């Protein structure tokens, strides 16, 4: 017994010692590196960027190495005339510069159309672009809250108000849309006449007026000079500005949030009250207004939270639109983790800055900045681009099947190996040096620690440069390599996570506490716990008989927003009251039908559900509404296919999904490949790709052993095949065209060696193992938001098609979004139909799309099925063009009873084809009997056959042609 106790004690002591040790060391392990020689950095930069097949000069390189002088004087062109630019249209300004040199450019702009996404412009000076940032100049829209009394939803929670676009002329200096500089971009002009061409590269309706060039000097003094300009004393009193009270912002991504923390104002632990403002992107500008009671000096403090992983956030502070002194540029806000703190704007020595304000109203603005890290980001990006190309070069020599036993003499083929590695080391050291002061633990900071490993890899390779062929996985490997370290860094470093609660403009006053005391915190816990028993949010419950009940199979955010739109728009317009409830599990619907407690409408159903319910008579046939086919013209015909049962249509599409080809532009360029347009083209580029150990990704290789229709059937449709015979009673999977499609799909894997399983296309794409592949809309969002380091290095293209006999290309793809249904048991069918019409209407959908993104962030992506709404959705114009073209080819699989067996049979056919080498015809023939038997069995259940197998009534299987035909009729009906 005592032995046990002793052992236990010993263990306890050990744990405590180790724990304490870790804590102690953790706080004390800041390390720093020394600066690198400027010349070395220059050498390394020039070596690497010179070696790249296509290398961009970034703005910071340009400033560093081009050494242009500043220009003088100013000149305006434009005469106050408005020029409206649509997408890809351009205009030209002529300006005269007094002398050759760098100038600021100021531009007046305004949204002329109805777009709700930010503009960006491509600027060329005399037909040239001195640096990369000139391709995407930011011309952001400005926004205001429609109301500052935040609307309450049905549960008493506050929700973010509608965002209102400010339609006024904005005069702005030009910045890049990544805001890599805190001060405006400088543009090189030659002496005399200069042509400045501005092209709209975002969305339609950019209005432009005057353009002014001026000497690049804003006259911002240093703090020392600033204090000498004014005299006075610190004023008494404190002005508080709540972060939610902003008067304007330049981004919908500055988002009002609620946090249940008693230190925030306002605070409530029963209902959600919006109390903080959060932003994550550099360039986000938020403006506040406040009154200074008397002339004199003030201090400024912020109650904030910087949740970025052990890294400072940078904000430029402007008062009345001007930066008061240099120290206000990219002011550093230390990381706080998830806690709150007060930051008094002050110098390195801890002395608070004094701001001179005259009595009266002033504005104060914060803008998130990236400049302090932009050089580090730039070098990291340069190395990752170079590493990818370098690894490719090595593979060109060694071939994709590496012979490990051979003695490699790689320096004979690539003499610069040692230099490259040296350059990597220099630049990584420079990256660490330039940002190590922004994190409390120096180079051990969370964002920088990956470089340790990268350095080890590089040192290791530098020791044996001849054998670098054996170490390519350390260069670009998927799990742990130089490239992975750099990619992680570049994708993280530009993000911020800055949340603001209060701003204090004050004199000699003491600031309110930054953190809640223990008592308050515990009190709040209990309060929250208590209220959790009394809330009845989101429950699907009985409501009055005159209320239309809608169940939504989506997240709470969607439910809240929909209810709000209904309350503010639909109900006032039609007088129909609607109760929107969350339905966490769509299977609940089946049970509710069985229990006879259905809602009137259900939304957010995956595309197979309406058919299952419809074939059992639970769902309302929408063709009973006179204007159904007219309304149907809002959507693509293919989206209706799974909702058809006999002559009826039982659901209306809400959202869409698309399949498209995504490819790495940098790799395609360096290998000289063209983007595949058809499957033949895909096969054509495979040898070249595979020679470098790369491959094409087909989405059938993702995930699980069971292959769904969207993965297996597109090629059947593209080859003119079909899944069912005309009467819908037998499968047609063994017909020649279908077999041709199946074989084509199988051949990709059998004859052309695509990977049969891919764990994460996202990562393989990032590390250029699979530089091209097929993605869905969910993947698209992931690439868009999850891989900022690849920005500009990939593009979308249409889903590969199959060339038809007449030479046209058929691009059918199978994918579907979600749909909405009306239940048969409803006594408010007309109202329900009104509701669905309103919901899928252009204005509602556009409003919903934008509000979703501006309330919850742009990761909340909504792809409306309404085509007009889709064309107004906030998607990059180039991508949108691909998507708009692609959704025309949407063709879902027609549903019939016993469908599941069809789906799994095709899945099995693919499996036997690819893994056992059976031919498509044989594999398909084997499945036909079972499928037909299952269809017959189900048809018997649904009373199409009697028990002896006699057909009682014909079953009608309508495919896309019928829908198109009916839609045409619907269109004629309106004309």
């Amino acid at each position, binding site marked *: 017994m005592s032995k046990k106790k002793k*052992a236990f004690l010993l263990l306890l002591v050990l744990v405590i010692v180790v724990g304490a040790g870790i804590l102690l060391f953790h706080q004390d392990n800041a390390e720093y590196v020394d600066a690198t020689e400027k010349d070395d950095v220059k050498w390394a930069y020039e070596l690497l960027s010179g070696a790249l097949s296509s290398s961009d000069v970034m703005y910071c390189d340009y400033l560093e190495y081009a050494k242009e002088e500043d220009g003088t004087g100013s000149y305006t062109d434009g005469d106050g005339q408005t020029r409206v630019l649509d997408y890809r249209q351009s205009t030209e300004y002529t300006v005269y510069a007094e002398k050759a040199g760098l100038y600021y450019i100021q531009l007046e702009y305004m949204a002329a159309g109805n777009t709700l996404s930010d503009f960006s412009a491509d600027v060329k000076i005399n037909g040239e672009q001195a640096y990369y940032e000139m391709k995407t100049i930011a011309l952001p829209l400005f926004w205001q809250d429609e109301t500052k009394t935040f609307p309450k939803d049905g549960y008493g929670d506050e929700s973010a108000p509608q965002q209102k676009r400010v339609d006024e002329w904005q005069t702005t200096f030009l910045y890049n849309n990544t805001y890599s500089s805190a001060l405006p971009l400088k543009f090189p002009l030659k002496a005399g006449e200069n042509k400045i061409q501005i092209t709209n590269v975002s969305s339609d309706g950019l209005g432009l007026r005057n353009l002014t060039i001026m000497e690049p000097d804003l006259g911002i003094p240093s703090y020392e000079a600033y204090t000498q300009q004014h005299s006075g004393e610190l004023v008494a009193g404190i002005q508080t500005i709540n972060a939610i009270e902003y008067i304007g912002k330049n981004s919908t991504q500055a988002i009002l949030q609620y946090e249940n923390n008693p230190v925030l104002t306002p605070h409530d632990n029963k209902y959600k009250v919006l109390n903080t403002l959060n932003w994550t992107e550099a360039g986000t500008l938020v403006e506040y207004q406040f009154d200074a009671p008397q002339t004199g000096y003030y201090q400024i403090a912020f109650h904030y939270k910087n949740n970025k992983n052990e890294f400072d956030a940078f904000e430029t502070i402007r008062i009345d639109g001007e930066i008061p002194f240099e120290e206000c540029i990219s002011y550093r806000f230390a990381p706080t983790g998830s806690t709150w703190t007060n930051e008094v704007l002050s110098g390195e020595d801890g002395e608070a800055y004094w701001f001179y304000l005259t009595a009266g109203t002033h504005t104060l603005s914060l803008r998130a900045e990236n400049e302090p890290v932009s050089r580090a980001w730039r070098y990291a990006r340069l190395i990752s681009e170079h590493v990818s190309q370098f690894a490719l070069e090595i593979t060109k020599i060694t071939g994709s099947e590496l012979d490990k036993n051979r003695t490699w003499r790689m320096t004979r083929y690539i003499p610069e190996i040692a230099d490259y590695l040296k350059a990597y080391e220099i630049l990584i050291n420079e990256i660490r040096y330039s940002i190590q002061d922004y994190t409390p633990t120096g180079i051990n900071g969370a964002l920088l620690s990956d470089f340790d490993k990268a350095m080890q890899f590089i040192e290791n390779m530098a020791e044996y440069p001849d054998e670098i062929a054996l170490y390519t996985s350390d260069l670009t490997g998927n799990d742990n390599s130089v490239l992975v370290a750099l990619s992680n860094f570049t994708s993280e470093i530009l993000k911020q996570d800055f949340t603001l609660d209060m701003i204090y403009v004050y004199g000699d006053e003491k600031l309110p506490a930054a953190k809640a005391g223990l008592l308050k915190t515990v009190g709040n816990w209990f309060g929250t716990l208590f209220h959790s028993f009394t809330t009845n949010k989101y429950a699907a419950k009985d409501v009055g008989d005159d209320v239309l009940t809608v169940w939504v199979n989506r997240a709470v955010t969607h439910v809240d927003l929909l209810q709000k739109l209904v309350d503010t728009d639909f109900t006032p317009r039609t007088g129909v009251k609607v109760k929107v409830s969350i339905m966490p599990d769509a*299977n609940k619907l*089946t049970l509710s039908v*069985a229990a006879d407690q259905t809602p009137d409408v259900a939304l957010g159903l995956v595309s197979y559900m309406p058919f299952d319910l419809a074939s059992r008579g639970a769902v309302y046939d929408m063709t009973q509404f006179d204007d159904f086919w007219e309304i149907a013209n809002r959507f693509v015909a293919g989206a209706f296919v799974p909702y058809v049962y006999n002559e009826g249509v039982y659901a209306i599409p809400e959202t869409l999904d698309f399949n498209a080809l995504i490819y790495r532009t940098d790799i395609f360029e360096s290998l000289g490949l063209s983007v595949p347009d058809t499957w033949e083209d895909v096969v054509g580029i495979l040898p070249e790709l595979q020679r470098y150990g790369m491959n094409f990704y087909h989405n059938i290789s993702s995930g699980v*052993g069971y292959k769904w229709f969207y993965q297996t059937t597109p090629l059947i449709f593209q080859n003119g095949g079909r899944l069912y015979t005309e009467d819908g009673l037998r499968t047609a999977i063994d017909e020649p065209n279908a077999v041709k499609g199946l074989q084509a799909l199988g051949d990709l894997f059998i004859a052309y060696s695509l*990977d049969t*399983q891919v*764990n994460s296309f996202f990562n393989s794409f990032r590390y250029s193992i699979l530089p091209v592949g097929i993605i869905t809309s969910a993947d698209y969002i992931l690439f868009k938001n999850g891989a900022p380091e690849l920005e500009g290095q990939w593009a979308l293209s249409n889903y590969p098609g199959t060339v038809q006999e007449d030479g046209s290309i058929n691009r059918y793809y199978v994918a579907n979004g979600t749909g909405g249904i009306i239940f048969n048991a409803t006594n408010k069918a007309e109202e329900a139909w009104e509701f669905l019409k309103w919901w899928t209407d252009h204005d509602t959908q556009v409003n919903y799309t934008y509000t979703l993104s501006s309330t919850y962030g742009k990761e909340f992506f909504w792809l409306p099925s309404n085509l007009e709404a889709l064309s107004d959705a906030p998607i990059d114009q180039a991508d949108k063009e691909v998507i708009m073209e692609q959704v025309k080819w949407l063709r879902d699989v027609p549903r019939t009873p016993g469908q599941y067996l069809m789906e799994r049979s095709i899945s099995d056919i693919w499996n036997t084809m690819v893994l056992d080498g059976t031919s498509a015809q044989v594999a398909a023939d084997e499945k036909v009997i079972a499928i037909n038997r299952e269809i017959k069995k189900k048809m018997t259940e649904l009373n199409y056959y009697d028990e002896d197998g006699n057909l009682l009534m014909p079953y009608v299987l309508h495919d896309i042609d019928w829908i198109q035909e009916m839609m045409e009729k619907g269109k004629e009906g309106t004309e």
Partner: protein
Amino acid sequence: MKAQTSELTQGKEKLSRPKKSLFHTEGFKGGVLLLPYGIVFSMFILVPVIIAIGLSFTYYDVINKPSFTGLLNYISLFTQDEVFLKYVLPNTLLYALVVGPGGYALSFLLAWMLAQIQPIPRTIIALAIYTPSMLGQVFIGVIWKTIFSGDQRGIINNLLMNMDIIDQPIQFLLTKDYFMEIMIFVSLWSAMGIGFLAMISGILNINDELYEAAYVDGMKNRFQEIFYITIPSMKPQMLFGAVMAIVNAFNMGWIGVTLSGANPTPEYAGQLITNHIDDYGFIRYEMGYAAAVSVVLLLVVYLFNKVAQKLFSED
């Protein structure tokens, strides 16, 4: 053990002899004490089982009212359901026989081996062996899918390719070739559950004097120790372990679904009877048929339990 029980029963008889009013009878008291369990048991187990048996004689599509079809479900199960006869039944039997008795024997063996070593390492190792059975499906899926992943980055494929044994990654979880074996392996790995713990405690509770006495009586080796002393002394734990192993073996259908990512498993290679029930109940909406299959499952499990009881019961 035996002596104690008989004493207890004698005691009971003695106590219940004096005649009293109904409220004071032993039976009533016992009934009251059993009531909470009884209510919960019948609400959540007995009633659903009865309903399931009832539904198994109907056609029920979840939405419309069930219609009585007699024994049709059972007849089609054994005469027409190709998948059931060709894949599900053999799979289930193979799986249950290997994972049930196999896992059972393995837990006993491990428990016995652990009982031979010092307490502290024993606790640590027992915890390590027990942990997999506590992991959720998702966790098991993540671990083993990474290990058996069918691309070059799957751990096993990567090892084999590095050792130049194969050129192309093997599709462990996509083909029928290895699927059942992997399922069995993973199940055995996570089979050391509560039954295993019971066995350790059973072995550790055996009185050492029994062994000593047996050696005096001429026992020669450890094998005899196991068969003549250890197992007979821990029959209750053995029975408990056996029941747990059987129930476990028939209910582990989710393993195949977790590993392959979908129901049905590739070409029905890992289709067990519980997957078949899910398939019919929730994919094909044939609840009546699914109920019939689950009744068959119930009977099979019951049968196996009877066998286990025959083997290990006290009398």
